[in-house]
Each structure stands twice: as C-alpha cells, then as structure tokens.
C-alpha cells in the first residue's frame, strides 16, 4: 500500500477530511455551553421548556432519518427548491446534496443541528448546581446580567467544559461512520471520506481487511496517546485530570 502513490494521495485526502471535520467540531465545542447559558437566561419558563424539548428532539433520530429529512428538504425536488421556485429565485434546482464544495461545513451543520440541544443538557445540569450565594453576592455588588454570566456562570462551567473537551480531543480521529456513510454520494465522495468511512469502504468494498484493521488499530493507538497527552497537559496547567 505504501508504495502506491494514488493510494497515498487518497489517504492524505482522507486524513485532511478527518482533521477538517473534527477540527470544525472542536472549534465550535463551546457552542453547547453558550446555548445552555443563554437558555437558562430565558425567564419565560414555558418558552424555555418548549425550546429545550424541541431542540433535543433531533438527537433521538438516526442518521438515516436525518438523511431522509435532508433529502426531502434539499434534494432537487425537495421543499427548499420548491420554495425557491415559488419565490422565483431560481430557474434550475440547486443541488445542495451533490455539492462537494462545502461538505465539511454542511456536515458540521448537521452534527450541530442533531446534537446541540442534547449536549447542552449537561451544561444546564452544571448551571443548576451553581451555589446561589454566588448569584446573590454578584447582585449585591450590582452586577449586570452579562457580568453575572461572565464572572459567576462561566467560571463554574469551565471544569465541565474542559473535561468534555479532553474527551473530544481524544476521539479526534473517530468521527463515526453512519453520518458520512449516509451522506456520501458520487459527487462529494472525495471530501466526505473520513477515516472511519474510508476504512469501511476499503474493507467492505475492496476486501482489504488487513489494511483496514491496521488503520483502525493505528487510529485507536493515536486516540489513547491523545487522551493521555491532553490529560497530562491539563494536569500540568490546571492541576486537574480525568484519567
């Protein structure tokens, strides 16, 4: 495998995709925290409950169903194209799903759509656990809402955030298979293949079990190394560790 230039290029592209998509997820890993902070800022209890209920729903459907929804919304005869046509904005349908230009971004968007509300639950739990006297003290000192968030809520959330961040870094190479499998097609194949999907395609499509196993094992090894590195780093910088 190593002596084949085409395969090396392919593998490099796959690694680039993995890094790109995991990187995007890592870059925006603070979103659930911010989501939780602002959600708990909402004073209207019913509205807040409604938002929380509705935004956790997508977490409970499978990627196949997500793809089916995506297909119904964004395919050439889908609802979005129907809407655009009715508004007279396009003549020919926009091919959202066959587009290979923004695959990393759209995959990130789907992940976020599915998981954001659910990931926020953990942070909401953390916010519930904040000592009330801290709020009262901030109020006595005349803090505004943003100041309370910055000086009381945010510092209390950071430990939770760092633990989750470490776990996320450890699984940097494990994007999972399903999402990319269902969204892959002939047009976006080059930019959607992450390591997990590549390994699957290699083994199930080409029957190269040994290479696939080698890649998967290497991947796990790197994950372990990553986990212990970030753990050591966090012990050094913050004096806390998870393992």
């Amino acid at each position, binding site marked *: 495998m190593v002596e084949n230039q085409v395969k090396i290029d392919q593998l490099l592209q796959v690694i680039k995709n993995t890094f790109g998509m995991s990187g995007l997820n890592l870059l925006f890993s603070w979103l659930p925290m911010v989501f939780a902070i*602002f959600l708990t800022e909402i004073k209207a209890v019913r509205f807040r409950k409604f938002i929380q209920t*509705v935004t956790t729903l997508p977490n409970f459907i499978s990627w196949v169903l997500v793809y*089916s929804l995506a297909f119904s919304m964004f395919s050439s005869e889908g609802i979005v194209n129907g809407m655009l046509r009715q508004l007279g904005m396009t003549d020919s349908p926009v091919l959202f799903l066959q587009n290979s230009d923004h695959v990393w971004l759209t995959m990130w968007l789907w992940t976020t759509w599915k998981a954001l509300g659910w990931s926020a639950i953990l942070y909401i739990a953390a916010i519930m656990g904040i000592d009330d006297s801290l709020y009262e003290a901030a109020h006595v000192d005349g803090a505004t809402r943003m100041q309370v968030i910055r000086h009381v809520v945010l510092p209390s959330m950071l430990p939770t955030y760092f633990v989750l961040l470490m776990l996320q870094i450890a699984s940097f190479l494990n994007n999972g298979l*399903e999402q990319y499998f269902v969204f892959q097609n002939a047009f976006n194949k080059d930019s959607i293949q992450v390591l*997990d999907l590549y390994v699957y395609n290699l083994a199930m499509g080409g029957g190269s079990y040994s290479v696939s*196993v080698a890649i998967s094992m290497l991947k796990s090894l790197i994950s372990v190394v990553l986990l212990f590195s970030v753990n050591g780093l966090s012990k050094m910088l913050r004096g806390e560790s998870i393992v």
Partner: protein
Amino acid sequence: MSDKMAEVVPNAVHQSRMDKKTSFKLSTTDKFISVVIYTLFSLFAFACVYPFYSIIINTISANDISARGDVVFFPKHIHFQNYVDVFKIPGLGTAAMVSLGRTVIGTSLTVGASAFLGFMFTQEDMWGRKFWYRFTIITMFFNAGIIPWYLTMRSLHLTNNFLAYVLPTIVAPFFIILVKTFVESTPKELQQAAGIDGAGIMTLFFKIILPISKPILATVAIFAAVDQWNSFQDTLLLVTESKLYSLQFILYNYINQASSLSTMVNLQNAGSTTMASLATKQTTTSIRMTVTIIVVAPILLIYPIFQRFFVKGIMIGAVKG
C-alpha cells in the same frame, strides 16, 4: 436572579424572585440581549421542528403536488392513501417486526444486565469488583474500530443472525455507570437492614434495589430502546439476508431506490378496479416520505411523554458521575 431555584422550590423562591424582578429595571443592553436570545432560540427551534412537520404535511397532500416540492406550510388536497399503499410494499412488514423485536428483546436484556451489574458494582464484597468495573468502563473509551468488530462478530457466527442485534448491546458501560451512581445515592441502611433480616444478594437485588431504581431504569430503558430502534450500522455490516433487515436499513435502501418501488406499488394498484388518480398515485417522493414518517413515528410519539423524565435521569448520572 437564578431561575433554577424556582424549579427546585416552586412556591416560596419563585415568589421572592418575582418581587425582585419588579424592583429591578432592565437596562437597554439587557433588553437588546433578550431580543437577540429569543430570536435565535426561536429560529433554531423552528429549524428543529420544521423538517418533521413538512414531511408529515407532504405525505397527506396530493402526491403530484408534493413531488414537485410545492407543499411548504399547509397540506394541499388531504388524503391518507399513502399510508395504505406503503404497507403493500413487500418486506416492510418483516422489517417492522425485526425492528420491533430487537427493540423489545434488546431493551429488556440491556436494562436487566445494566441493573444487575450496576448493582453488583456497588457491593463492596463483590469478587474483583474494581478490576471488573474498570474492565467494563475501559471499553467505552477504547475500541479497535468497526472492522475488527466485524471480524469478531463473524468468527462468533453472528452474521445473518438475529442475536447480533441483541447480544452485543447487553453490557452497556454508560448505562451501568448511571445505575451504579443511582444505587450509590440511595441510603445504605436500606440494604443493611435487609441484610440483617437475612436477605441474600438476590433478594436484595429483586426486593430492594429494583423497586427503588425505577426512575433510572426507565431512563436506561428509553435510551436503550431508542438506540435499538435507530440502529443501522449492525444491519449494514452483518446482515445480507433480507428477512433480517431492520426498518432503518429498509428506509436507507428506499431513499436510494424509491423510483422502482413507486412503479411497483402503482402497478399493484392498477390491477384493482379503481384507477389511481394523479393525486394518490405513488411517486418516489411520496413513498420515501411516508416510510420516513412510519420509521420516525415511534420516536415522535414516545418523545414528548418521556422527555422530562430522561432529562432528569441523565442529570442524576451527569452531576455525580
């Protein structure tokens, strides 16, 4: 002030919070922030709900209109023929039985094992407790990947076997942690008292632990059931016989080849005396959307009932674990 107090102690604290609110005046920035927060959250909530809503209204609209993507906010020419026709697709009934079966059997096994193992891991006199606990938990973080997993399953003869759906999920580390944390949070005296009265480990488990762990076990059951229902990867990797296909797998196939299916259903209907009109004639879109709704329906139905429940359950595990 803090909203969370209002939830924990509804009456007294809520009252005082309301009083404070009247005595404070919101600054202009606060108001502006509120508007932004409400708008963003509303938009995101809309994005979460609309796809489901739009597919439902499309399945009950005239098929020739919905095939063009023209049903956007309200159903047009309502009919329910799609749901009748889709059940005529061969294989769908079997797949529904497989999905239902694996959900029921798999969930019961997972809940039973999680309850028992979670309970056992709290018993200090369990043989090799620390080792076995770590042994279980470590699988959550390290795994070799799907291909070694596939090869293992193959050598265990679990390919094309219904057991492949239910066996691997039995020991689920995350659920075991949830149960263990919960059992640890219950008073120890309860178990001690039963022990003094002569209860063995099994009596303790069935008579004491199971009844008081109901909330966490319900949470585990919901998660396990949703996982089973949604599972797609194991069918993809392990199953080639169509009688073992799950609904998710069938749906995935339909998305890719719905046009041939619509022809088939239309041919079947053409054989009967009533000719299908343009509005109820099956199209690629109508079949795909109707099957989607059938697959997503159980989730949409149980979700609102159990939502509050499992949010609480996961918080029990999250805060202390």
